[in-house]
């Protein structure tokens, strides 16, 4: 994994790349370019070795949204040129075009962000944000959330088991399971709130608020590519803007 040039890029470079895609998708007119971007992203994902997960998430997260948006736009966007009608439903040319434009943009931007989080470790990203000035407190909140969610899931299971031994029905019809929700959720929330105090003390005993500048074992390095790429991105975006508004 470490050999891969793409994955070795600085998280900020990847982030700028995502923002760059975001910008050009909005600047360029028409849906063809935006749709063409998706195969490019697929190629990048393939090259980074995350094609399968990437496709999986795109399908799960975006596909249904895209289909719904497309159908809604197609049917209900106001327009004159009716292509096909059935009762109150009419497909209009304007709606079709707008639906394509909207879905192409959502697809391009959404999958660009999904790709970003596939090829970037969140801890690297947070570290890079910290390097450019995110306070350690904020970084802690983001990172601890990532770790605490699986921990809470484990705790929820424990509570569920405990409630089972006390005779709370947790299996069966939807209604039974819904009823089991409250005796499971309440202790989970309460214990999480109680846990914050101890966590604060834990952090304090690790000198979290020590009045010195922190160091970090986790270092990110910037290569020349990482310095050059953002400038290239910015130049292209400016170029496109100029072309779009002055010609």
């Amino acid at each position: 994994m470490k050999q891969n040039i793409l994955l070795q890029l600085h998280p900020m470079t990847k982030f700028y790349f995502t923002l760059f895609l975001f910008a050009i998708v909005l600047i360029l007119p028409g849906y063809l370019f935006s749709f063409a971007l998706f195969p490019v992203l697929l190629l990048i994902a393939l090259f980074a070795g995350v094609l399968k997960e990437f496709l999986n998430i795109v399908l799960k997260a975006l596909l249904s949204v895209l289909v719904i948006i497309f159908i809604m736009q197609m049917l209900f966007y106001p327009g004159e040129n009716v292509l096909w009608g059935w009762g109150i439903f009419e497909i209009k040319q304007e709606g079709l075009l707008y639906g394509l434009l909207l879905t192409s943009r959502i697809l391009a931007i959404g999958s660009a962000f999904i790709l970003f989080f596939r090829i970037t470790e969140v801890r690297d990203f947070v570290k890079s944000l910290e390097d450019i000035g995110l306070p350690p407190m904020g970084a802690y909140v983001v990172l601890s959330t990532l770790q605490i969610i699986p921990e809470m899931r484990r705790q929820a299971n424990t509570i569920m088991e405990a409630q089972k031994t006390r005779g709370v029905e947790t299996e069966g019809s939807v209604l039974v399971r819904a009823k089991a929700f409250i005796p499971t959720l309440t202790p989970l929330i309460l214990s999480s709130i109680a846990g914050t105090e101890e966590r604060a003390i834990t952090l304090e005993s690790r000198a979290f608020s020590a009045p010195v500048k922190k160091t970090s074992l986790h270092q990110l390095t910037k290569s020349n590519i990482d310095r050059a790429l953002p400038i290239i991105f910015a130049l292209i975006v400016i170029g496109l803007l100029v072309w779009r508004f002055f010609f």
Partner: protein
Amino acid sequence: MTAMIDLKNVSYRYPVSDDSVLKNISFSIEKGKFTAIIGNNGSGKTTLCNTIRGFVPHFYKGDLDGEVIIDNTKITDYQLGQLGEKVGYVFQNPFIQVSGVKDNVFEEVAYGLENLGVPVEEIKVRVEEVLKLVKIEYLRDKNPFELSGGQRQRVALASIIVMDPEILVIDEPTSQLDPIGTQQIFEIIRLMKERGKTIVLVEHKMDLIAEYADDLLVMHKGELVMQGPVRDVLADPAFEKYQIQYPHVTEIALQLQKSGIPLSFLPIRDEELAEALNRTGVAVHD
């Protein structure tokens, strides 16, 4: 010898409670001493630890009377963050003592040093050393959330001693450990003492306290009822009424005394029993 920890008439009441948890406590602990705090559940041991660490009154509000002086400075004159370097505190519950932002034990142990701004190269050397000391090198790549209670307890201890504080406050560090693990922890504590650390330990395992600790503080219902060298406190007949366990050998010796067998002194360590019985100098196997 200078006093490292000095409490003068300290009383403390938690914010929403009516009774004081600590009542008029005074003692002082010299630099480099190993002091054990004993007492039954709810006697205020943990609150006392919190007070020495400065969580009372910096973190827990409530009423604190009297003076707490750590290394010649009043606790109220410290900022909470400054105390982190001075007083290391390993607390009871090992399951919550995880930073929650680190993926492996090595980084978890390094976390305190990062916060203290120690240079990276030095961090690596120090963490390496502590992992070896606490015998958790084999855990270095494991996720701290996936460890057993005993393993977490070792990681928690390692994470604190790596910061090399002058004072170590350790609250029941062996509650999740097997006998061998417990013995190892006490060996580590002894090593810390040899390095000149001042140690305050809350523990229920009297045999080990008798073997390792210098002084005892006995807490009972929020009051400090007895204090002094371990041997003197245990030999004091008053100790019995607080219903705290004696070291096993002391218990046996007291039984022997009751059945009329004279002892030259009250043994508190296993190997002393023979000596206490053989006061005339007759060898056992003769």
